[in-house]
C-alpha cells in the first residue's frame, strides 16, 4: 500500500483513541458506520472515467455530504486525491483491498 495513504489512514483511526472524551467527529462516525451520501462505483472503468464520474458526483453533492468512490483503475487511486486537493476538498480515507480501492471525501 502507498505509504502516504497508509499514513493518512492510520491518522484517522488512531486519532483520540484514548480514554479522554473526544469531540464528535463526523468523518470518523461515517467511516466507522460506513455511511456515504453518494456512492460512485467505477470498478472496471478506465481513464478518464473514474476521474470524470468522481467530478460529476461531487458537483451533485451538497455541502456536508460524504462521497465514496470505489474503483480498480490503478492511476485513478492517486489521481482522484490530486483532483480533490485541487478542488480544495477534504479527503477522509483511502483503502485498498486487492485490486479494489475505496476513496471517501467530504464535500
Amino acid at each position, binding site marked *: 500500500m502507498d505509504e502516504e495513504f497508509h499514513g493518512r489512514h492510520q491518522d484517522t483511526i488512531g486519532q483520540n483513541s484514548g480514554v479522554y472524551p473526544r469531540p464528535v467527529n463526523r468523518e470518523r462516525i461515517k467511516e466507522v458506520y460506513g455511511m456515504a451520501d453518494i456512492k460512485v462505483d467505477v470498478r472496471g472503468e*478506465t481513464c478518464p*472515467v473514474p*476521474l470524470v464520474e468522481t*467530478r*460529476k458526483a461531487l458537483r451533485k453533492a451538497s455541502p456536508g455530504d460524504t462521497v465514496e468512490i470505489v474503483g480498480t483503475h490503478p492511476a485513478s487511486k492517486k489521481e482522484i486525491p490530486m483532483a480533490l486537493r*485541487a478542488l480544495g476538498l477534504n479527503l477522509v480515507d483511502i483503502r485498498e483491498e486487492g485490486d479494489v480501492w475505496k476513496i471517501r471525501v467530504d464535500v
Partner: protein
Amino acid sequence: MTDKATIVVHSGDMDKLYSALIISTGALSMGMEASLYFTFWGLERLIKGKLEAGSLSKVHLMGLGKWMVRRRMKAANVASLERLLQDFKELGGKIIACEMTMQIMGIRQEDLRQDLIDEYGAVGTYIQEARESSITLFI
C-alpha cells in the same frame, strides 16, 4: 490567468479526438475550465453521425487497424467518444465551431451537432480563450 485548458481540435482522427476529449474532460474533472475549438478535419467529427468516423492517425490499414484498436479499446472498457463528449458538456465544457471551416467545407449549422456547440467563432475567439488559459494545445 484562469485555470483553464483550451484545445484546438484540428485533426479528425479517432485517436487524436480521444486525446483531446480525455485531456479536456480530465481538466474539467480536476476543477479547471475547458474549451474545445473544432476546426478543419476536427470539425467534420461534429457533423451529425460522423463522430466515430475518423480514421487512425497511424496504421489505419484501410480500416483494419482501426477495427483492431477499437476491439482492444472495447476489451479495455474505454468510454466511447459520444460518452466523453456528453461528460465534457455536463461538466461545463465549451465547444466552439470554426466558421471559416464551415465556409470552406460547405458545412451548414444544421449539418452539425448543434446540441453540443456553444459558439461559432473565428481566430479571435480562440485567442480570447487561449490567452486566459494555463494550458493550450493543438491536436
